[in-house]
């Protein structure tokens, strides 16, 4: 019985954290946030060199052969650093191939995804607000797919899109192909830009076990968003604590005021004990298949709500300055909005958890 990190896992987190501090400190995040380019390809390439792109991919396909816990630990660090880049979509595309790809599909794509040579993303959301596989609408006609998806992360720069289609299946679409149009969306979180994808008789390939993979992709996504949310909320807490120790009002630092102290304590009590929710969701994805679906739903709903509230609290503690574009708090504020809405809002996943828990009168 061990609910803690291995030495390797701690080193993994430290390595990624140090890389970000060096290559993508918050000043760089700000540049990218304000830039037209959706992310810094060099920083992403650096992360790929660290092996992040292929963390889950078996060694025979050129990856590190690690598990969802490891990937979620990385997601926490990326969330803490507000990493601007295509991590999420790439990770989920990789999961789709791992969980539902035929051997040929895996051989073709996994080595390139693992190395970062190819960038993957997913196109799951729809304008109707539907995220759940059984509500997807694009239709297949032989090897062609037609339909419109939205909220696809960094699709504009991707090579491969894993697209959710009618019947809760997944198909592979190459971005350069005919009939594929990718439209940038002005997204709230400029560290993780989103695109709309219009498919008009675009060539595609069905994933061998797409229905299963769709559910695994969703659960992985929920766990990774929960991890990101925990990392982001921790960072907001740390920033608020630091600010309370430096900002002076009425002749003392504002941390002297019990109202501020207690607000910080309440933030901490909301955030800090919730770390295990994403650990458990990721662990269940790896090792407890019966519990994975519910654990990831609970983790995503809870942690993304905590993240959003921490962002509001952090703005409040920062006062007027926290409300400005110049203040770094905004990066996490907007990441919180992303984490909370992407793949469906907390209420959706709470209702799923209730149903999965068999709660009925």
């Amino acid at each position, binding site marked *: 019985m061990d609910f803690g990190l291995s030495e390797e896992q701690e080193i993994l987190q430290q390595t990624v954290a140090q890389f970000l501090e060096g290559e993508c400190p918050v000043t760089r995040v700000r540049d990218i946030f304000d830039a037209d380019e959706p992310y810094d390809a060099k920083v992403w390439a650096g992360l790929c060199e660290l092996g992040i792109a292929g963390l889950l991919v078996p060694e025979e396909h050129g990856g590190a052969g690690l598990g969802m816990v490891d990937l979620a630990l990385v997601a926490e660090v990326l969330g803490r650093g507000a990493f601007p880049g295509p991590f999420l979509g790439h990770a989920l595309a990789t999961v789709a191939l791992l969980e539902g790809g035929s051997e040929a599909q895996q051989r073709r794509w996994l080595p390139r995804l693992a190395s970062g040579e190819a960038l993957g993303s997913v196109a799951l959301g729809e304008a109707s607000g539907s995220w759940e596989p059984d509500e997807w609408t694009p239709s297949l006609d032989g090897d062609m797919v037609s339909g419109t998806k939205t909220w696809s992360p960094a699709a504009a720069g991707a090579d491969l899109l894993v697209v959710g289609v009618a019947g809760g299946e997944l198909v592979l679409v190459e971005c350069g192909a005919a009939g594929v149009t990718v439209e940038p969306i002005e997204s709230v979180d400029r560290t993780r830009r989103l695109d709309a994808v219009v498919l008009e008789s675009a060539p595609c390939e069905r994933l061998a076990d797409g229905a299963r993979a769709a559910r695994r992709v969703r659960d992985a996504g929920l766990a990774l968003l929960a991890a990101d949310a925990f990392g982001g909320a921790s960072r907001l807490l740390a920033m608020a604590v630091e600010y309370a120790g430096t900002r002076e*009002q009425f002749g003392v630092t504002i941390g002297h005021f019990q109202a501020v102290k207690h607000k910080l304590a309440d933030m901490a009590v909301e955030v800090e004990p919730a770390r295990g929710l994403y650990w458990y969701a990721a662990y269940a994805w790896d090792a407890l298949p019966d519990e994975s679906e519910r654990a990831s739903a609970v983790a995503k709903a809870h942690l993304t709500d905590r993240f959003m509230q921490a962002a509001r609290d952090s703005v409040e503690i920062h006062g*007027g300055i926290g*409300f*400005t*574009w110049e203040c770094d708090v905004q990066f996490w504020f907007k990441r919180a*909005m992303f984490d909370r809405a992407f793949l469906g809002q907390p209420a959706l996943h709470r209702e799923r958890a209730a149903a999965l828990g068999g709660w009925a009168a």
Partner: protein
Amino acid sequence: MDLRYSEEYEAFRGEVRSFLASSWPLQGDEAELPAVEQAALFRQRAIEQGYLARAIPRSYGGSQQDPDVLKATIIGEEFARARAPGEMRGIGPSMLVPTLLEHGAEWQKERFIPPTIKGEMHWCQGYSEPGSGSDLASLKTRAELQGDEWRINGQKIWTTGAQISDFMFCLCRTEPEQSKHAGISYLLIDMKQPGIEVKPLRQLNGGADFNEVFLTDARTPADHIVGKRGEGWIVSRSTLEHERNMIGDARQTKFIFKGLVRLAKQMGRLDDPAVRQRLAELEGYIAAHEYSGYRQLTCAARGEDPGPVSLMNKLVSTNIQGMVAKLSLDLVGDGSLAAPDGSARGMFQGLRDTSGWVSQYMWSLGIAIAGGTANIQRNVIAERGYGLPRDAAAQSSK
């Protein structure tokens, strides 16, 4: 208790209506004038009738009416119904003018009030500084009297409308040897001069409704001081009170609540029992705030003190906006993945699309901070409303 108006007031309402029927919209050639000129023309006529600028003496361009909260309410209602231009909004008419009436020199009233209430002179407020938000007494912008001019150096922040303002009313430290409140004066400064630089301050939701104002050897004549040297603190207090009332208006929260119900309908969520419960719970706060406003209006009309509730309007409004924001975020669904529209909505806009609501979600945080943070409000309520002791932390700094 009678929410109807008495016959006398209904008669007054009739007068207002018939004035409006014949006066707005403008007819004939006048209807061809630019909108701003039409509004100015109409306002002048309304002032002559005693319907606008009622608290302002005729000598300063007002209509000099006896205070009557109910008449003012009726005028507000009827002008809104007729979509006629009402009292000039903004920080000049609502904050500077009452301050000048109370503390200004005669020449200041004559010079500044008429153009301000006509909308010909625009003002911004220079109170907050980067280092002093809630703690205004610690402000650092200095003004030194050199000959017949003040020379002002420092920085102001959160200055709404600084780019389009003609003048700023500004708190400056003029008596450096005096501590805290005692050394501050209230100056009127021409914004159109080389010593003043305005830099927009972009906020979280992408809009830029505030500014930083840098004062570098800015100048203003020696007599552009309201009240005496070192009395700026007292002069400014009445203005802050005005601001708090302005922000706390219950009509705004009712308006935004209607928008929220509309949003829930539009997003197909009004059938969700969880959403209905939350909306109905919120409506309790909205209605309470509205009736509390009626009660305070009645007290004002009677010259009675409504008690501590008058200190609470701002915090009530802030709390409501926080609840509205949270519910709206749930209602917009995926809409919160898209960028907000960046406009400064406060609660005045239509909020007809999800992008506007996302903007409002962020904007509600600014409301909580503007005009004194929620924590300062709580101190005021506890100390002035219920006689609790002053903050130990703040006292220990003295």
